[in-house]
């Protein structure tokens, strides 16, 4: 399974770089940034180059719902059965996707990630008042 991390600006690249601190060098994971002035059409063309063959399982991890990288990934995934698109990525999500992708197909993985996401954020409070 291929994983494509897609964001505004440098977040995707830095996310991948940070994930590799935990996981070492990864394979079939790419990062792509949409920069100020980039057109959505050119961004989608970049996605096409990264996805490769039609039948390959591909998971998109996008930075924010409604953002152009997410919108482009959704548009791109239309009619492609082996692509799933997740938004609201954080480091825990990226690590989990990379490490468990060999165990299941892309849609099961997406479902599992959404199920565990709420455990990846929270507010810490001290016990004392």
């Amino acid at each position: 399974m291929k994983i494509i991390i897609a964001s505004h600006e440098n977040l995707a690249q830095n996310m991948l770089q940070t994930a590799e601190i935990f996981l070492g060098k990864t394979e079939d994971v790419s990062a792509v940034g949409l920069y100020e002035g980039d057109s959505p059409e050119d961004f989608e063309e970049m996605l096409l180059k990264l996805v490769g063959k039609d039948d390959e399982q591909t998971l998109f991890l996008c930075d924010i719902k409604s953002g152009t990288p997410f919108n482009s990934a959704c548009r791109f995934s239309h009619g492609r059965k082996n692509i799933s698109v997740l938004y609201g990525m954080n480091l825990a999500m990226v690590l989990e996707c990379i490490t468990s992708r060999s165990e299941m197909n892309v849609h099961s993985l997406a479902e599992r990630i959404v199920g565990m996401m709420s455990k990846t954020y929270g507010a810490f409070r001290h016990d004392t008042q």
Partner: protein
Amino acid sequence: MKILETRIDDRLIHGQIVTAWIQATGADAIIVADDNAAGDALSQSILKMATPDSVQLIIKSLSDAAELIKKDKSEVGVLLIVSNASGARKLLESDVKLEKITLGNITNKKSGQERKMVLKFIFASEDDAENLRAISNMGVIITAQTVPNDKAYDVMEIMKKAGFYK
């Protein structure tokens, strides 16, 4: 309806709109006035997904949007989005009254017309320049701004600086 903000933005509904402009304007509804989007089911489903549940989304062709805006006398606050300067000009020429327009993203498509960089988020073609000048000549104030907290530029001024209207 009351047009609270008119924006030219070829990304239509995206992060800056959802995180900044809806809140800043207090809009109840977004009208996307765009002939391509109005005729394309996939674009519509993506625009719908990008729009927060609290905001009504209306997608119309330019001519249908102009009719709706002129006809509707309600108090609904609207964020009006068109994808390019030509669209904004068409609305004005259909007698839609707009006092000011914000120029958001005109991105740098690698195919199509040659474009000059005006600001980091604006790459204008000769057609864009001509349409923007026509809009300005109708007495509409046009400023360029990515998000409400960022600087607003006088569009005629920055276009001249970029080498247009010689």
